[in-house]
């Protein structure tokens, strides 16, 4: 395959991944690496490097829009970024020591878990509880605009959230994904932050988290410009398109279809890893 054909095909695939990722809220990164590794036979380390670059682009692009809407809790984001960036750094160093087949297996397991999470319905938001002393001390409690006026919320279980965030950062650095699913889990389930605030703050943090591991990947020679270029531009265009149509689309069934695709890719990655074909 010539560079021109390869570039155009990878750009088209990344565009679809970015589009579906934005539409379903699952992010494009999670399907990018298996797409590159399985369909385009790219070495998984190059694939992870390119995906990381795309993750920074989409997260920063979307965060720019969300931050101005006033849902993002910047203090929660900054505080938890201590955990995610340290995690990302350890994940990136871990990635340089783990053999490619093992990386593929870990990736497959994460894909299966993401598929499970996205197909599950969310429990109802809990009633407002007492303010947590640690969260109050750290000034994490916040508010956001609703049609019926400003709603205040109290953040809870800070240590559990912080620990989960370190894990999310490690996965992000190890696999080149945004790991938005784990970040939302930490904020929405553990710390009891309202869902809309969790998703926008998670997105706000993804760019910084990915930048923390991208530096290590760049210095280790894992980021190839010829591959990163179509991936970054394709995902960016796809996700911009996705957020445009998001308002009109029925995403429930689409999420389910995407979850099935992710699960299939997960099984495929585990199989390739076990049989050493990656």
């Amino acid at each position, binding site marked *: *395959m*010539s*560079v*021109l054909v*390869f*570039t155009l095909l990878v750009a088209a695939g990344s565009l679809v991944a970015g589009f579906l990722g934005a539409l379903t809220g699952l992010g494009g990164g999670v399907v990018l690496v298996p797409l*590159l590794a399985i369909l*385009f*036979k*790219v*070495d998984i*380390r*190059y694939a992870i490097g390119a995906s990381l*670059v795309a993750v*920074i*682009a989409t997260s*920063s*692009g979307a*965060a*720019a*829009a969300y*931050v*101005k809407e*006033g849902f993002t809790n*910047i*203090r929660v984001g*900054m*505080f938890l*970024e*201590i955990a995610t*960036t*340290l995690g*990302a*750094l350890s994940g*990136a160093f871990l990635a340089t020591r783990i053999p*490619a087949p093992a990386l593929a297996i870990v990736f497959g397991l994460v894909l299966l878990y993401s598929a499970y999470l996205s197909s599950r319905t969310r429990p109802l938001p809990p009633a407002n509880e007492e303010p947590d002393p640690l969260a109050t001390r750290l*000034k994490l409690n916040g508010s956001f605009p609703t049609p019926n006026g400003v709603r205040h919320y109290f953040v809870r279980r800070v240590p559990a959230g912080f620990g989960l965030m370190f894990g999310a950062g490690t996965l992000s650095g190890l696999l080149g994904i945004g790991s938005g699913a784990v970040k939302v889990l930490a904020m929405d389930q553990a710390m009891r932050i309202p869902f809309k605030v969790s998703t926008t703050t998670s997105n706000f943090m993804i*760019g*910084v988290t*990915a*930048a*923390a591991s*991208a*530096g*290590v990947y*760049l*210095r*280790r*020679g*894992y*980021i*190839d*410009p*010829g591959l*990163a*270029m*179509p991936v*970054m*531009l394709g995902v*960016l265009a796809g996700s911009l398109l996705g957020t445009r149509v998001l308002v009109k689309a029925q995403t429930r069934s689409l999420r389910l279809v995407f979850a099935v695709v992710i699960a299939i890719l997960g099984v495929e990655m585990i199989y390739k890893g076990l049989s050493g074909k990656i």
Partner: protein
Amino acid sequence: MTIWAKWTDQKTEEIIGNLLRAGVLLAAMVVSAGAILYLVRHGEAPADYRIFRGEPTDLRHVRGILKNTREGHARGIIQLGVLLLIATPVVRVAFSVFAFALEKDRMYVIFTLIVLSVLMYSLLGA
């Protein structure tokens, strides 16, 4: 001094939003420019990413990438765009240090400085 005195979270959010948008836009433009050069010059060459070789040292650090860009190498220009993209969240964090300092929030200045040093360590190495 009146602008500084009335500094609010909302103002910070607005500037951060613009900063992120500008960074991504600039990076995408540089990558696109490099892409055109790269495809015109090397479009016919075979593409093969099956075997991991690692990038040449020139494309691994800031100085090498800048040198490649000055010499007009297509892959160097794309890598410069990638570097600008990685720098965007770093600049955002650096701005947050400044914004929290204006709000006289010493605790968050320290938190943000920790994040900034992790990022600098990752990008520039020990």
